[in-house]
Each structure stands twice: as structure tokens, then as C-alpha cells.
């Protein structure tokens, strides 16, 4: 598709991409400075660790989205999937199917992972075997997952009832290991695995090839459908991991759980430097993007200048400015 473009439009060598990859981190650094100016508490360890901790849901989901997007797909159903998987998990835990609380909890977590993977597989099969444009396919499954959640909750909430179970599960979100909150560990662990698979394994190579040029991948003996489908399954697994952190934090779901998270996840991916047209995946950039989103919100909250009504507008403006900063950085290279 891109052949002989003007020389300035294309990067000169693979090395020049690196500056583009660094850009999100520069934007993040600028935001940190801005935050420090806005409020003294901002740069405190407590606040920053809070911010990173709670970016966990979006960050982890966005890791999966990085896979889907770099394979040339898109998944709009992740927010609804969070609600669906979390609802089923809580219902299972409430059912008390297993007497021992710890076993029950572990079974519940395994179930969540399985359901997440199944939802991802369903998305993947519809887009690849059904050959439906991912945007529409996952918009459809978004409706399906959210509808089923509404139905499961009969319009109300699904809440983890067992106190004992709750306190058993609590540390998964609120706990710390060596002073580091568990969610932060989970974020970086998931990202490390995701980065390893994407950058160092055969599957990762295939994924990028499929996203770059489907035909080339096909002619190189890569099963495009399988690779894409697996990307959606990875997305499902990431959603499940996010749910494993979500349930101990909020302990309850309703039909509105995770609404618009898909947009946030995609935004994190794109802010992180992964192009929506596929063929490029930046795991660490995505994390950075997720942190940026959360920090923007945090700064808004901590600073007291902005009218409540304008928060959305300022957030939008900051994202655009962050992208412009990135753009000008990578253009200078």
C-alpha cells in the first residue's frame, strides 16, 4: 500500500522508529511536571502509587487491546466483557458451590479466566471466520455481553455477599508485596509477559506480520485467521485478569460496569504509539498511555482551578496536546 512516498513521510530506518516509541514517555514526564505544579501532594509516593494502582483495569485491558490492534483488529466489547465476566464470577462465588472459601475463590478465578478466554474466542471467530468488520462484530458482542449482564442482574446489582470471602479476596487488590501494591505488580507482570510474547516469540512475529500486511502473512504460510483469533483470546484473558482485580476492589457489578472502558483502552493504546491500522505494537507505550490517562484525571481532581463542568473538555484538550507533543517530537527526528 505504501510504496514510494515522499521521503519525509516515512521513517528513514528502523532505528528512527525509536524516537517515536519514546515520545509517550516524554509526554508522561511533562504531565508529571504539570501535576507537581498543580498540587504538592501529587508527586507523593502515596498518590502516585494510588494512581498507578487504579490504572490497573484499563492498563491490563489495553495490553490485550495492543494485541488486537496490532493484528489489524479492534475490540469494542471489552467494557461489556468486564461486566459480564465479573457478574458471572460473583454469581459463582455467591452460589457457594464449594464449601471451602479458598477453594471456592480459586475456582471462581479460574472460571473468570475461562469465561474471558471464551468471550475473546467468540469475538475472534466472528471477525475471522464470519469475516465481519471488527468494529461491527465487537459492537454486536458488546451489546450481547452487556445485555446478558443486565439480564443476569435483573436490572440491579450483583454483589459479593459472603463477608469471609470478601476479606479473603481483598488483598488481591488492596494488598502489598514488599511495599508494592499487588495491582502494580500484576500490571508489570502482565506487561512483561505480553512484551515477551509480542517481541520475542514466533506468535508475536506472526501477529505483527498479519497486522502489517495480511497477504504477505498468508503467502508466508501464516494462518491469518488463527493469529487474529488468538489475539482476541489474549484480549479476553486480559479482561479476565482485570476482572480478578476488579471484583476485590468494587465487589459488585451492574449493567453499567465498565461502560466506555473500551474507548479508554483504545485511547491508551494509541496514545502509547500503536497505530490503529495495525502492524505495530508497543506494550510499554500502552502502559504509558494508560498511566497518562489516569494521571490526567488525577491532576484534574487534585488541582482546584477547573470547574467541575469543564473537566471533560480539559481532559480532551490534554489528550490532544499530548499527541501533538508526541507528533512534533517524532517529526523532529
Amino acid at each position, binding site marked *: 500500500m505504501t510504496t514510494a512516498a515522499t521521503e519525509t513521510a516515512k521513517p528513514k530506518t528502523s532505528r528512527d522508529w525509536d524516537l517515536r516509541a519514546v515520545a509517550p514517555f516524554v509526554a508522561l514526564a511533562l504531565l508529571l511536571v504539570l501535576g507537581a505544579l498543580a498540587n504538592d501532594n501529587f508527586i507523593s509516593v502515596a498518590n502516585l502509587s494510588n494512581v498507578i494502582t487504579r490504572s490497573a483495569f484499563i492498563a491490563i485491558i489495553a495490553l490485550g487491546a495492543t494485541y488486537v490492534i496490532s493484528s489489524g483488529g479492534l475490540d469494542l466489547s471489552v467494557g461489556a466483557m468486564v461486566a459480564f465476566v465479573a457478574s458471572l464470577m460473583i454469581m459463582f462465588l455467591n452460589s457457594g458451590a464449594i464449601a471451602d472459601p479458598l477453594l471456592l475463590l480459586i475456582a471462581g478465578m479460574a472460571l473468570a479466566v475461562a469465561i474471558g478466554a471464551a468471550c475473546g474466542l467468540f469475538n475472534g471467530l466472528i471477525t475471522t471466520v464470519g469475516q465481519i468488520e471488527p468494529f461491527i462484530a465487537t459492537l454486536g458482542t458488546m451489546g450481547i455481553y452487556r445485555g446478558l449482564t443486565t439480564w443476569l442482574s435483573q436490572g440491579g446489582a450483583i454483589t459479593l455477599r459472603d463477608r469471609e470471602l470478601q476479606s479473603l479476596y481483598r488483598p488481591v487488590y488492596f494488598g502489598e508485596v514488599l511495599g508494592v501494591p499487588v495491582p502494580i505488580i500484576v500490571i508489570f507482570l502482565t506487561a512483561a509477559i505480553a512484551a515477551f510474547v509480542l517481541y520475542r516469540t514466533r506468535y508475536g*512475529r506472526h501477529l505483527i506480520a498479519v497486522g502489517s500486511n495480511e497477504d504477505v502473512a498468508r503467502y*508466508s504460510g501464516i494462518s491469518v485467521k488463527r493469529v487474529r483469533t488468538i489475539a482476541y483470546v489474549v484480549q479476553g484473558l486480559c479482561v479476565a485478569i482485570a476482572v480478578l482485580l476488579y471484583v476485590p476492589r468494587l465487589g459488585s457489578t451492574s449493567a453499567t460496569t465498565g461502560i466506555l472502558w473500551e474507548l479508554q483502552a483504545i485511547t491508551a493504546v494509541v496514545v502509547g504509539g500503536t497505530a490503529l491500522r495495525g502492524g505495530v505494537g508497543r506494550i510499554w507505550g500502552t502502559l504509558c498511555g494508560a498511566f497518562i490517562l489516569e494521571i490526567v484525571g488525577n491532576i484534574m481532581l487534585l488541582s482546584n482551578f477547573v470547574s467541575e463542568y469543564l473537566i471533560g473538555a480539559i481532559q480532551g484538550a490534554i489528550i490532544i496536546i499530548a499527541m501533538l507533543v508526541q507528533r512534533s517530537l517524532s517529526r523532529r527526528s
Partner: protein
Amino acid sequence: MTPQPSSDRLPILEARSLSKSFGPVEVLRDVSLTVLPGEVHAIIGENGAGKSTLMKILAGNHQPTRGDILIDGQLIHLTGPVDAEKRGIVLVHQEILLAPDLTVAQNIYLGRELPKGLTLDDRAMNEGAAKGLRELGADIDPKAIVGTLSIAQRQLVQIARVLLVPHRIVIFDEPTASLTPFETEALLKVIKDIRAKGVGVLYISHRLPEVKEIADRVTVLRDGRLVGTHLASELEPADMARLMVGRDVAKLYPDRQSGAARETVLEVENFDVPGYAKNASFQLRKGEILGFAGLVGAGRTELMEGLVGVRRASGTVRHNGQAVHFRDASQSMKAGIVYLSEDRKGKGLLLLKDLATNLTLASIRRFVRALQIDRKREAEALDGAIREFDIRTGRKDLLAGQLSGGNQQKLLIAKMMMLDPSIVIIDEPTRGIDIGTKQQIYKFIARLAEEGRSIIVVSSEMPELIGICDRILVMRSGQIVGEVTGEHMNENEIVVLATGVKTGEAA
């Protein structure tokens, strides 16, 4: 001293000491040349010599790092391709540059549509496009969507598009690489016509006989430097080859004994590729080089794609006596059958990825150790491929799309050879490849055959098929219409079969 055919004509275009660097790599150094009105000035050189780069500078696509461009003796600064077009310099790119979703006529008139009141005069544009294409000997429906055309057809559309712009200088960058002799002939005739109108033509080709036929002067580039400009009448193709490569290229085709006597490794019976090929039946023997000849659109490419499973097809295929049906390329690759696409940009290489990634894409399995891709071995493999296939690249961290056209082709061959296949199907193996490298590739194909592998060569260049094949099958309209072997392997026989017309009429 640069020879001039006649001294009374002033050059329309002059390049003075042009240099061009991409980053630290200088790909052109101090190249000067002139184009006179009414001359065809050929540029030849090895792959990566800088021909396309030079042409892109002259057509405003690149800015030179140093040097000047003069038109009619006036120093000018080209701001872009559109600016160059306004001054009458037009370029037929080596790559296909067309909008795949638009029709042929829409592409041809893109950017200079004929208005009719508020709307567009589609009828006039369709007629104009049809006329332009007819002159090129191409009977392509102006209403066809470009995305559905074959590479050759697209190339013709691209040429038609450029010729419709008012022009004083036309630059052709390997226009004939994907054309058959028929279309080539028609194109050369068109070029002669425009030369007669006083237009200056810059012409790049690796087909040296063609250069000999059409050019008035020939400029040779080597490693980004000017070797010299000569009158074409004073050069034979062999001289050109020597000037380009810097050594004698005496024998293009390797000597080899026929591998015809050995056992059959692939047996194809009543093979159908819906819409493209019907009832194809043939056999391939061990150590054999089998050629497939035919006109553009004969369906050779699609037949091969059907065989390796990247295209829907039906029929019987026996591989080493076993019935097989490949549903995708991974299955055929596992069986040791690989296919090299003719469309290296669309189906061969990831243009925005680096060389190593491209090289190992199909064979990545071999580079995995403990789940991990061994980057060091990948880099070694790249070094090996660069050596073995003589891939000319200034830096190893280039993106595949930044290689010169011919070097991309070499990279594609290297990529597929990483699979160590037993049956190799090569579609247009030397498209856009310089003569020195061609010789290497033929040698390489012959060596593969000697090693006991079987090779199918699909090519539109009859001399090459005749030069290296044991047998040649000819296709017409999706059917295999005949086989030529032994002393029957000559252009005449093939043309008769390919066109279904007696030679006398076909000329």
C-alpha cells in the same frame, strides 16, 4: 566527453553533479546527465545503483542533497512531483502507484478530471482512457476497478496515465519489467512516437536488447556514480552488461543436463482455479526445471496460487504419489513446496519491517529456541542471505521498502529459500533484476535442480524460460494448451501456442 547525437539541439533537461544521501549513506554521487529533445536516453545499472533515486530527484519526488537541475538551461528548484508535472516532467514509477478502489479511467484522470458543468465528464474520460490504453496495445476496460487488475495491467494503466499529462520529458522506470513481449513492443512503439514529437525520454530497463533497440544514448551508473554516457549505436548489450557490472557477463544461462528421466514428484490432474484456470494437468519430475509461459492474464499465477493453497481451487494433486490438498500456504510449506509471488510488494515483503524480519518470516520456526526467537541467529541468517544473494544494501537496519526494487526481489527469494523447499515455484523470478544478478539467480536455480529439487518457473520472459528450463508448458485463457521441449523450445513455438495465432499474423 559526453557524446551528443547532434550538436544543434540544446538539452531540455540537465542534471549537474547530483548527489543524494539517505541518512549517512550516500546513494548518488556527482551524477550529471543531459536529455535532448527527441532522444531516448537510457539509464542502466545494477540493482541499487541509484537509477530510481536519480529519476525521483528529476521528477521532484526527492530533493537532491547537492547539485542542480536545469530546464532549458534555466536553474530550477522542483518542490514536488506536482511541480515537476507542471513543468512537463512526468515519471512512470517502478512501483505501482494507483488507487486500488477507483476504476482505470478514474485513476488515469485522477487530479485532472474533465469537468462537465458541475459534474465530471465520465464518458469522455472513459473514452480517453480506452484510447490511451489501446495505443499501448492494452485492451483494458476503463471501468474496471484497478484493485482487480493483474500487475501487468496495472503497469499499463500507470503508463497510460502518465502519457496523458502534457509532457516534455517522460521518465520510464522499468516500465517493461512486468510486461510480456507483446506489450513491450507496443510500448516501445509509443515511445518512438513521442520521441518523434520532440519529447525527451529517460528510460530505465534491465532488458539490454530492448535498450539497444530503443535508446539513442545510454548512461551507465554503478554504485551511485556515473560510469559514462555512450551512444547506443556504439554499444552492444554485452558491452552494456560489462559497463554495469564491471566484469564480463559472457554466459547468462548456466549449462546443465536435463533432469527429465527421474521420478515424478508432483502430479496435477484436472486442476481448477475458479475464474482463472480450468482442467490443468501436468507433472513435475525430480530435479527438473519446468517453465510456464503465457500472455498476461493467461492464469499462470492463479494456477500456482491454487496449487499451494492460497487461492480456492479444486482438483487432484499428488505429491510423491500421495494425494494432497493444501488449504493454505503453511500446509504446502510443510510439504516442502513454496511459492514466490510475482507481487513482491503486495504479497512478498512487509515493506515497513526490517530486512531480518522479512527474511525469517516464513521460516521463523527454525529460529525459535526455548520459545524465544534467537535474534543473533536471525542476524547471521541475514548476513548469509546478503552474501549468497548479493543483496546490495548500505545498512542492515533498512526497512524492506527502502531497498531498491531488484534487491527486494532478491530478499524475497532468500526468504523463501530459508525454508529449504523440495519444490520451488517462482513467479517472475527476475522481474526488475539486473543482468549480473540474473546470471546469479539462474545459476542458483540450476543448482537447486542439481540438488534434486524441482522448480517451476513462471515467467513472461521467453528467453529466460528457454535458457533455463527443461520443458515449457504454455497457457492460454486459463488452460494449458501445449508443451515445448528440446529443439522446439524457441520463441516462435511458444508464441503460437500462447496466442493461438500463427506467427505471421501475430507480428
